[in-house]
């Protein structure tokens, strides 16, 4: 006999609302349904009624963790419509911000996941590292969360002293390579809790259209920074970690390896940082047209579509966040797992319900 257990909208893993109803036979899950929309703020609707300068600040509020990627994607879409060239230094500063944000996001997630599997010491160590990333972001932008760095045609602030950023990136790289990765791949607590749990096959990953680390942990070798380079990603050397197991452990490992790659990218970008202006001047509107821009955010591909009629207010702003693409695959991941695995499987997605609902 089967029974249904509702979990949420108050969440057991993350402090955001989302609901999953799992149908069980004994402890085993045989079906599930998801409900989102509790955070719906109508940000796209609002962006179509504000001028583009105000919309940059608005779209930065889509997500509290990857806020920079949203304002950057929006600006890059408008730059594509208007054929606006961003000065090279501005592009490099955007890359530093994007990779610091990836470090912040991955470390935050790794900390939350450690706590979930009952590894309190690791949680503390990881959050100490995360704090240093926030310090680095603050040293550049003056802010620890919403950085207000992006404008149409470049960035608002220069990196005047890169020593703090270099120091943080090198320290995180050393700890991740020396402690975090060996621990995550050999520790019995981690392996026992994560291996073979919440498997998403490569076939399901394609059918559900998952993105980012979730896709790469299921053997889908994709990363827009490499496949469709934007900013100056084509000029730096980095690897794209891919795992084939498709389980929670694979997602853990992919993100840990990505932390190292991000640190390498930051180091290279700071080394090759060109001199010159950081933006293309004051731009308040773009010509009529439409464009798509896709960026590899920490959680995967962000999709922005903007249509302009030539005024200062966008005709259409469409935002497809990575969590919107990833969360539906929970239905495939929880099948044949036990009810006790649901919080970990959900958390392994690194879901953001604020992003999803917009």
């Amino acid at each position, binding site marked *: 006999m089967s029974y249904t257990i509702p979990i949420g909208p108050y969440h057991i893993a993350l402090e955001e609302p989302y609901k999953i109803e799992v149908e069980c036979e004994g402890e085993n899950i045989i079906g599930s349904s998801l409900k989102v929309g509790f955070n719906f703020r109508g940000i796209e609707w609002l962006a179509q009624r504000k001028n583009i300068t105000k919309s940059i600040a608005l779209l930065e509020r889509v997500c509290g963790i990857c806020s920079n990627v949203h304002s950057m994607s929006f600006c890059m879409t408008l730059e594509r419509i208007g054929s606006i060239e961003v000065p090279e230094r501005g592009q490099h500063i955007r890359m530093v911000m994007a990779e610091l944000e990836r470090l912040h996001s991955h470390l935050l997630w790794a900390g939350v996941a450690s706590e979930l599997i009952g590894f309190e010491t690791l949680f503390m160590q990881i959050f100490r590292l995360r704090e240093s990333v926030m310090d680095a972001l603050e040293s550049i932008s003056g802010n620890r969360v919403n950085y207000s760095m992006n404008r149409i045609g470049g960035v608002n602030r220069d990196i005047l002293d890169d020593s703090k950023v270099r120091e943080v990136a090198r320290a995180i790289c050393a700890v991740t390579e020396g402690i975090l990765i060996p621990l995550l791949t050999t520790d019995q607590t981690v392996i026992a809790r994560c291996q073979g749990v919440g498997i998403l096959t490569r076939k399901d990953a394609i059918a559900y259209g998952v993105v980012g680390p979730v896709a790469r942990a299921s053997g889908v070798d994709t990363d827009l920074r490499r496949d469709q380079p934007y900013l100056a990603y084509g000029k730096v050397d980095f690897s794209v970690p891919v795992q084939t197991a498709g389980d929670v452990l694979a997602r853990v490992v992919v993100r840990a390896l990505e932390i190292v790659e991000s640190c390498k990218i930051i180091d290279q970008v700071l080394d090759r940082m060109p001199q010159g202006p950081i933006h293309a001047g004051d731009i308040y509107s773009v010509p009529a047209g439409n464009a*798509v821009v*896709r960026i590899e955010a920490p959680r995967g591909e962000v999709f922005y579509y903007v249509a302009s009629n030539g005024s200062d207010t966008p005709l259409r702003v469409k935002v497809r966040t990575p969590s919107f693409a990833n969360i539906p695959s929970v239905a495939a991941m929880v099948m044949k797992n036990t009810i006790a695995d649901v919080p970990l499987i959900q958390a392994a997605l690194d879901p953001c319900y604020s992003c999803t609902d917009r």
Partner: protein
Amino acid sequence: MTAEETRLEIGGVWTERADGWWLSVPATSIQKIARTMLKAEARFVAIVALSEPSNAMQLSWHWDMGGTLLSVVSLLAEGVSVPSIVDIYPGADWAERETRDYYAVTFEGRKDTLPLMLRNGDKPGTFLRTSGDRL
């Protein structure tokens, strides 16, 4: 299959833009295109609805193949429904439900189309109904 081979198999006149390849088709052919995309292991990305001044609706479906964006666009007359691709790409479920929520587009062939962002019983078409003042 590469993005180029997929474009050739789908046929039609594709236009290259800075953001990828675009094709205009009647909405009735979207299921056939989706099957070809799945066979080629293209990743479904998004559906974008754009309300036209003439009350028509422009709908675009987007796929990714190895970093190349393949976009298929249809212009719909007011009130016309479009075939669902959920049975081909389960990942399109939320995209279709959200498009119904915001623009009241009906997707045919689904078992049901529950609201995604709205509450059960809310009238679909939030973005159409609420023109609102400039903020």
